[in-house]
Each structure stands twice: as structure tokens, then as C-alpha cells.
């Protein structure tokens, strides 16, 4: 089971960087999202994997008995997913607005504010 996560983490990180390095804003956002997914998976895998047993105390017990999944990475990841979603939603809307305003989604055309200033003045 470790191997699956290793492959998945490597693949997702590679794909996300590849997308980030592209000039399209849309691909940049997709890349960042995949980067988030990969990071979550990474933390999850580093916190050790347990099949089936989740971090829930059975109704007939007072404390959780081993083996059970480590709740700490899960709590961290849960926060990360939700925050990540807020970020994604904002980024998506921002790209839309940027496209409306600037008329392009090519990052390289957006990187020189000085030029815009000098042409206007």
C-alpha cells in the first residue's frame, strides 16, 4: 500500500509543477490545485497508513484501541482541504476577472506593470 502512495505523490507533484510552469493562467490554477492534493496525500502517507480502522472510538469503548488511524494528520489535512477550496474559488474568479480586464490569460504578458505605466503616461 505504501508503494501506491509513493507513485501517486510523485506523479501528482510532477504533474502539478509541469502545469505551473506553463504560461496559461488556467493551467497555473489547475497546477496549484494538484499541488495541494499532492501535499495532502504526502502528509497523509507520512503519518502512516492503516487499512480500514478509522480514528473513531467504538460505542462500547472509552478509549481508542490500536490499531487505529492517526487523527493528527487527518485533522491537518481537513483544514488544508477547506482552506484550499477557499483559495481555489477565489483564484478561479480572479482569473475570470483578470481575463475580462486584461484580455489575455498568458502570464508572460502580465508580468510587466512598468510597461503599462509608461505607455499610458
Amino acid at each position, binding site marked *: *500500500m*505504501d*508503494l501506491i502512495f*509513493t507513485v*501517486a*505523490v*510523485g*506523479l*501528482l507533484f*510532477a*504533474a502539478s509543477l*509541469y*502545469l505551473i*510552469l*506553463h504560461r496559461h493562467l*488556467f493551467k*497555473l490554477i489547475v497546477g496549484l*490545485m*494538484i499541488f495541494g*492534493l499532492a501535499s495532502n496525500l504526502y502528509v*497523509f*502517507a*507520512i*503519518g*502512516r*497508513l492503516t487499512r*480500514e*480502522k*478509522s*480514528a*473513531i*472510538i*467504538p*460505542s462500547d*469503548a472509552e*478509549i*481508542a*484501541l490500536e490499531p*487505529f*488511524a*492517526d*487523527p*493528527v494528520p*487527518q*485533522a491537518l*489535512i*481537513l*483544514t488544508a482541504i477547506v482552506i484550499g*477550496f*477557499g483559495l*481555489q*474559488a*477565489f483564484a478561479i*474568479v*480572479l*482569473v*475570470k476577472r483578470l*481575463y475580462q*480586464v486584461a484580455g489575455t490569460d498568458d502570464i508572460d504578458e502580465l*508580468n510587466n506593470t512598468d510597461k503599462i505605466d509608461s505607455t499610458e503616461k
Partner: protein
Amino acid sequence: MLYTILAGLILAFAAPLLYRLLGRFISVPMVVLPAVLFAYFCTFISPVVAGQLVMQEYSWIPSLGINLQFMLDGLGLFFALLITSFGVLVMAYAGAYLKGDSHLGRFYLYLTLFMTAMLGVVLSSNILCLLVFWELTSISSYLLISYKHKYEVSRASALQALLITNGGGLCLMAGLILLGIAGDSFSFIELLQQRPDLLNHSFYLPIVLLIMLGAFTKSAQFPFHVWLPNAMAAPTPVSAYLHSATMVKAGVYLLARFSPMLGGTEVWNYTIMAVGATTAVVGAFLALQQLDLKAILAYTTISALGSLVTLIGIGSTFALEAMLVFLLAHALYKGALFMIAGTVDHATGTRDTTKLHLLGKRMPLLSAAAVLSALSMAGMIPFFGFLGKELLYEGAFEAPRFAVPLTAAIVFSGIAFVAVAVRLGYGIFFRKSANEATHIAHKPETFLWLPPLLLGIAGLVFGILPNITVAPILSAAAGAVAGSEVHLHLALWHGFNPILMLTILTIILGIVFYAFTNIFTTWPVHLERLYKIGPGELYYTLKNSLSIGSKGFIESVQSGSLRYYVAVIIMTFIVLVVGAIWQEELYRVVTPDTFIAALSDIELNEYILILLMVPATIFVCLTNSRLIAITTMSLVGYAIALSYIFFGAPDLAATQFLVETLTAVLFVLVLHKLPPFVPLVKYKTNAFYLSLSVLFGATMAYVLVMVRQFPLDSELKAYFGATSWLEAKGRNIVNVILVDYRAFDTMGEITVLAIAVIGIFSLLKLYPEKGDQL
């Protein structure tokens, strides 16, 4: 002694306020402080002359060995008296010179700050403490030179002085730190006792060279002298105080201070000698060519500093005595002459010697001061300058080696001094000329002529009665430099000896040089080409190429391309991680067996994850359709959610499903109007990006495998498992952590989401009016 420094600092920073309260009477407290300090230091004369060493210590940063250690020996006391006595005169003079200036308070702030810093330099016996005060003198000098900050030339000159002296200050810092490491102490006294070890230490050469650089830049030695003439852009009181009498002598002080610790070796003596003699000649040669009063004085100051440094380089006890006598003589007449030049400038509005004629009759007291100082500068009997010059010649003449070239250099400097002295004391005041007497706009008030007159009289009195006035303290100072007891006996008459012959020769040649002043001031046109490669031009070339070079460097590094930055960050990351793995030999942890064991451990349902994720990820990267990209990305997200289910994280899975769905909907709703993808990246760049990405992914995967070979010791897991139900009354531990143990965190998270919602709403609903700036 700490209180003298503190008093100076407090009064310095109170000066602007005092100026507001007292108006033009601000001079009173500013003059009283150095006067009080002078009196205070006078009380130390008898114990110090008797050979006592006054020490005071206050802890400052004891953990770093930096303590406020003060020491008052002959040398320190001599300088302290010089600084405070000149302080009194200059403060009084400045009040009259800058009368009515709206920033006089600020001026006094800088000047008093400088005085305090300079006192700190000569009183410190902790070498790092010395360095701090040393830098403070450079900074106050910068502020004073740029006092007339509305003029570009003032700002450029101030910057030049700062860059050169602070560059030297950095060298000095390195030298002093090395010295501290070599001697295992920052206390001057302790280091002094380790002289034999220091001389044989492998750091000796760098220490000596770095300390010399610090001293040479500060004392305007060739080729660092260029800043001093330009520093004349400062108001004249500053030139008189900092740039002739005290600050530029800090370098001389430093060399003298370290002589008993580091001196006496060939590299020390010969380097200092050579630099000093060169400076003496260059300064004298350039002084002859100047027309501006202050420029003449500046170059002769450089020459005099060169002579002083030469004497330290010679290093014999006699040369060191001569150095101190000449230093005092020079301070007296040069300080006075600077003030006179300032007063002339103030009265007539010009400093050009060709426009100044016959000032003597209408400014009798000022001309008296000028004559006294000029006679001292020329080295006439019975002035103190005569004593200084005699000893200077004798010191060079009796140098153990290179006596002939050194004497020649010093005598040349002396001849130039005579010529300049005649110009200043006679030329502009009394010389009969076809031109009309220069118009005097307003007669100088008392404090514009009194301080230089006092200095001139002091030069006369010290010359006639040296042994009952200055000899004891000079002996104590020389003793501190030489490291042995010195009894100085000064006398005007030494009989007919070669030195007297040299003096007479100097005076005759000096007058001849004066007669040919015109040739010296017009002829240098032919030297233009030489000056073009001189240190003055070199400074500007260096400064300009530095700014051009840094601009080019910034432009090449800061390309402004997001992808470039990301690529650099990732490459750095990979290099660091691989480097760390290599260095710690962590790669030994992962063996092929690790993978084989892991492969056999996969259950059937888990293959589904791989089957879903791998093609979907590849599709995301390759597709040119936005919709396909969104769909396949969601597929990846769902696959991950599935894996959360498989490995005991139902909450994560639920959230992930929800978020993926929402994101996909949002994407489709918002982004359907964007243009289609067109390939924007070149094939070659694309290959580079692809390989970098694969490398990055492989690195992350490898780190994951590696980390998992080490045991995880999680006390938190056990803690939450044991307390979740009993203390927080919740069976789902993850939920309990979020809403109970880390409730504040979750509240912050909710706030972030709320802010995101506000941002999204405003982006969607608010549009700029037509014509609004973006």
C-alpha cells in the same frame, strides 16, 4: 568616563530643542560642555603624567566580550584634551559662522555627536567598542559634510567620504575581529601583553593590513586621500575641527595605538613609511597648485598627515616623540588657518586667492591671527611649529633605514608648507598689488577672529615655553606609543646642525616657490592626462561601474517571469534535498527490497486508485480542452478521496468529494468563456520543464519512501485516542480535534473562508465604471 560620553550624547540630541528654546544663545551650552570636559580631563593630567593608567569598565554585552572599557593613558589623554579644547573653540566659532542659520540646532547635534564619538575612539580600550565609536565619527562626518544638502556637490562629497572611510571601517572591523580571535580577547590591555604570540600568529599579516587600510582611509593617505579635499564642501567649522585637527588624525591615533602591539615588524614599518612619504609628497605637490583657500589647506593637511604616518612608520622612540609634537603643532596652526579661511570667506564672499587682496588693514585682529599661524606653519623660531618641524626633520633624518628618501619627501613637504604659509599669512593680507583691496561685506564679529587668534597665541606660547606647558603630556603620550618611559625635552635652539641647515634651506626654497606661485597654479593643465587615471577618477569609475554592474545583475536575476522564479526555487530545493541525502548517506536506508516488499503488499481494490489516477493526471497535463482538464482533475480528486476511504479517513473523503464537486461546478460556470489553449511554450523549453517536473516528483517520492523507513513516534496519537471520549465527549477523534482541541484554529479557518467569499463576491459583482483606472 562613561559619563563624559553620555553627557555628549544627551546634549547632542537635545541641541535642536535647545535651539528652539534659546535661539542664538544655543552656543552657550554647546561651548560649556567641551569646556567642562576639558577641565575634567585636565584633572587627570598629573596622575597620567606620573605614569598612572586610569581604567573604567562597564558591562555592555559581556557574552560577546564587548564591554565599555575605558582607558586613559598619555596618548588617550593627549587626544582627549586636543578634542575638547578644539571643541570649545570650534563650537564658539560655529555659532558666529552659522549665525541665523535655521538648522543651527541640527548642526550642533552633528558636531557634538562627532566630538563625543571621537572622545569614545581615544578613550576606548575595548577594540570593538573603539570600532563602534570609529564608525560613529564617519557617520557624523558624513552628516556634517552634507550639511548644505541642497547642493549636489555636498551630497556627492559626503557620499564619497562615507564610502571611502566606511569601506576602511569595514576592513578595520575585519582586522579587529581577527585580532580578537588571534589574541582571544577584545581588551586592548590584554592584547598588548600577547604581543609575541600575535607577531607569530598566522593571522598577523591580514590583521596588520586590514587595520592599516582602516587607518589610511580615515587619515586620507594616498591613494585614499581624494575624499578629504572634497569634504571641504562642509561648513568651515567642520573642516577646521574634523578635517584638520581631530577626525583625520584618528587614523594616526589608531596606528600609534597599535604600534606597541603590532608594530616593529618589517611589513608594518615599511608599508606605513612608504604610504606616509608618498602622501606627504603628493599632498604638498597638489597643495601648491590650488587657488581655493580651503583646498590649499586640505592638501597641506593631507601632506601633514603623510608626514605623521611616515614618523609612525619609522617607529623609533624619537620619531614617535616627533610625531606627537608635530601633530600638536599642526593642529594648532591648521585649525586656526581653517577658521581664518572661513572668516575671510564669510567677510568677502570668496575663497579664491587670486581675488583676495590687502585684507590686513581692515581686519587687523584676523590678520594678526593669520600671521601667527602662518609663521608657525612655516616653522619659524620661536613658534611651536618650528619645534614640530625640527623634530619632524630630525626624525626622518635619523631614520634607521631609507633616511635619504624620507628626508627628501619631508623636506619637500616642508617647502610647500612655507610657500603656502606665505601665501596665506602675507599674500592675501598684506601683499601690495595692482588690484584694489577686496571689498569686505561685513566685518567679522568677535567669535570669528578670537578662536584662531587664541590658537595662534597658543602656538607662540607653546613654542617659547614648551617645557612648562605641553612637554609633560606629550612625554606621557609618547611613552604610551613607544611602550617605554619617555622624557621629552624641547628646546628651540639645538646649535648649528644639519637639521638647522635643512630648515633654512626649506624657508629659502619656500619663499622661492611662493614667488613662482603663478607657475604652480597654471602649469598643472599639462597634468590633466595624469589626473584622469588618478584615484579621484578611479573612485568615480568604480562607483559607476558598481551601479551599472548591480543593475545588470538585478536585471538578469530578477527577470519578472513567474515561471523562471518557480523553476529556480524548485531547482534549489532539489539540489538541497539531494545534497542532504548524499551527505547524511540516507540513501542507504532505501534498498530494492523495500520496493519488492511494498509491491506484494498491495490489495486488489488499491490497484483501482492507480488505474484511475495515472491516466487522469496525464490527461490533465496533455489536454487542450478546458472542460476535459476540469473533468480529469476532478477524477484525480475523487481517486484521492477514495484512497482516504481505503485508509481510514472517512471525514477527509467526505470533504474531498464535496470540494471536488464544488470546484468543478465553479470552474465550469465561471471559466467557460476563456479562449482555448494554444501551445505557448517552445518544444525545447517544454522538454526542460518536463524533465524538471519529473525530477521534482521523483525527489518527493523518494523522500516519502525514505522517511517511512524511520519509526514514527507520535505521542499525540495516543493522547487524542485516550482523551477524546473521556474529556471532550466525542467519538470521532478527527472532529473532536477540529472543534475542540483546535477550536480557535477552526474559527480562523472559517474567517478565511468568509474573507474569500467577500472577495469572490466583489470580484463578480463590482465592475469599474468606464474610464476608471485599474
